[in-house]
């Protein structure tokens, strides 16, 4: 380890690689790298990764995107930018022309192709959280419901359902999960000749494909406009049979029974909450990944039916970012309030202006801003870690699946690493000893203690008391309790 400067954190190394550090800071980090083999190795590893990522972007992502549908032409920008003539007869002519263009525009075929739309919908189906759903199938004479997706072993063996499965199979249309873009695309892709039509309304896209090949003459699929989810389909067979499939509304859970009277045996509730810790974790992960769990005025509250996210204040761009991050998570309801005039339990309290930034402060006169920044970061992340621990206790964590537990550990590790990095800066400045650290599996138990230590350190840094020696001692003691 270098005896001069602390080990640079990952952000510092990345900023060095990207030429984002000031010359002075870059010089310090380079000096450190010259002395510290471990950090040189980290820097080499980062350089290799950045090269790989660049290669991935240039040779995988960009070439993999579709080419422009038309040849590029070099427009005359001055012509495109020219306003309409103002003379009256030219204005009238322009109005007629504009009306004609508008008419053409209204009547134009849909911009999006059926193949493209189905492909997007299919990918959304693949990436959506699995949720059981039921569909209604209506033929000429019968109507019945079934699970939207059946395994091969569940193939109907007799009755109308079996006949329909056979019809679909004969037509090359998957019977296992028929009301999906994927199944529609499987059938459509196999057709040697076809004609597509895509209609868009405010609510939905309707893809209709007609063909002269195969048992199905015309098929149409309705995709919800907001998320391209398949909600209904109609298949018209050459045999004059028509199948209509539609998604049934999701079943709502029964209200919880009242508490049994004292002494009565508890009844077994049939209520299955639709929104659980997994969905709540998805919200927290989404907020974490946009840095919105570090003091933004956001409150997340899980109910049985929904996860209510209340956001107060913030810029329009930030609100949109939050909305976008939470989009698609089941049960999320977002409310944006204009001002941050309420208390939000998960966020760190407002910070006071530090007297350490005042050069007259005698506590750590040379390191004021650095220390305050480090302390701020430690407190922010400690608040976030403690809030996470309160929300996801060990018992709640145990109820998550493996992916959920890994995500939770990742977030906790992010916070712990940030706190450790900040604490390291504080220790170097204060010439105090290193902490034994915190094992990630124990983070729930350690979170409140870490928060208290971070707040104690922050308080000493921000104190206006003149007892410098006492403050330094208390500050060192608090920093020593940080991971």
């Amino acid at each position, binding site marked *: 380890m270098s005896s001069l400067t602390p080990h640079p954190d*990952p952000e510092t190394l990345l900023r060095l690689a990207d030429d984002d550090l000031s010359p002075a800071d870059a010089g310090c980090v380079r000096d450190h790298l010259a002395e510290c083999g471990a950090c040189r190795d980290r820097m080499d590893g980062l350089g290799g990764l950045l090269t790989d990522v660049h290669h991935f972007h240039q040779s*995988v992502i960009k070439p993999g995107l579709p080419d422009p549908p038309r040849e590029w032409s*070099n427009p*005359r920008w001055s012509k495109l930018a020219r306003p309409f003539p103002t003379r009256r007869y030219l204005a009238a002519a322009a109005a007629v022309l504009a009306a004609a263009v508008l008419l053409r525009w209204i009547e134009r075929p849909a911009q999006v192709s059926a193949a493209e739309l189905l492909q997007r919908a299919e*990918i959304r189906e693949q990436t959506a959280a699995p949720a059981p759903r039921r569909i209604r199938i209506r033929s000429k004479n019968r109507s019945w419901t079934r699970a939207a997706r059946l395994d091969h072993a569940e193939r109907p063996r007799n009755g109308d359902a079996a006949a329909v499965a056979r019809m679909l199979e004969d037509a090359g249309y998957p019977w296992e999960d028929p009301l999906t873009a994927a199944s529609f695309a499987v059938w459509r892709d196999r057709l040697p000749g076809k004609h597509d039509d895509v209609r868009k309304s405010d609510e939905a896209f309707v893809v209709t494909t007609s063909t002269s090949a195969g048992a199905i003459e015309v098929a149409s699929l309705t995709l919800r406009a907001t*998320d391209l989810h398949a909600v209904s389909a109609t298949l018209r067979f050459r045999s004059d049979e028509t199948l209509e499939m539609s998604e049934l509304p999701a079943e709502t859970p029964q209200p919880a029974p009242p508490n049994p009277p004292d002494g009565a045996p508890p009844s077994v509730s049939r209520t299955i909450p639709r929104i659980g810790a997994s969905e709540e974790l998805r919200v927290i992960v989404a907020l974490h990944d946009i840095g919105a769990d570090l003091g933004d005025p956001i409150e997340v509250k899980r109910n049985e039916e929904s996860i209510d996210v209340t956001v107060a204040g913030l810029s329009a761009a930030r609100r949109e970012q939050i909305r976008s*991050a939470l989009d698609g998570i089941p049960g999320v309801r977002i409310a944006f309030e204009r001002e941050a005039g309420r208390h939000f339990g998960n966020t760190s309290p407002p910070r006071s202006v530090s007297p350490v930034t005042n050069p007259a402060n005698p506590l750590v006169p040379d390191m004021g801003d650095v220390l305050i920044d480090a302390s701020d970061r430690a407190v922010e992340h400690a608040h976030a870690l403690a809030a996470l621990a309160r929300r996801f206790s060990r018992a709640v964590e145990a109820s998550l699946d493996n992916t959920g537990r890994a995500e939770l550990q990742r977030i906790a590790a992010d916070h712990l690493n940030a706190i450790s990095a900040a604490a390291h800066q504080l220790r170097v400045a204060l010439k105090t000893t290193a902490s034994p650290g915190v094992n990630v599996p124990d983070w729930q138990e350690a979170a409140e203690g870490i928060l208290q230590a971070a707040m104690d350190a922050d308080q000493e840094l921000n104190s206006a008391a003149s007892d410098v020696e006492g403050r330094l001692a208390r500050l060192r003691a608090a920093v020593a309790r940080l991971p």
Partner: protein
Amino acid sequence: MDALEQQVTRAFEDARDDIYRYLLTLGLAPAHAQDAAQEVFLRLYLALRKGETIQNQRAWIFRVAHNLAADWRAKERLQPLDSDMLALVRDRRQSAEAELLEKEKMQRIAAAWQGLSPQQRECLHLRAEGLKYREIGEALGIGISSVREFLVRAITKLQKAAYE
């Protein structure tokens, strides 16, 4: 063709493909992306003709492209499809170019890329297009500290995926 027209045409020829592909990653369909790419350079022409000073033209056109895509997505009520586009990339790569790109590391990066947040991916896209952190922040309408945070988290995730 006057000097301004030539200047914008040169910029158009240099960057239109980059802008077009950036717009694709933001979820625009190819036809829309191509129209929007042209619109970006028309706006550049208009801004320069009005005498606006543009310090960094490349950052400026990416910012305009980002805003156009955001407007379009809001109008169409569709969600960003960045992950979808990348899933398409993955699928194509596995089928058509599998032999060429079967390096295990690339696959792991591709898988980890899917797990990045849209903001992290956008920051990486713009970084790969040569924008500095401040310019990325201006393009996305976020602070430079957020850009750093997004990038370091993205890189950390990719690093774990690629090497661990």
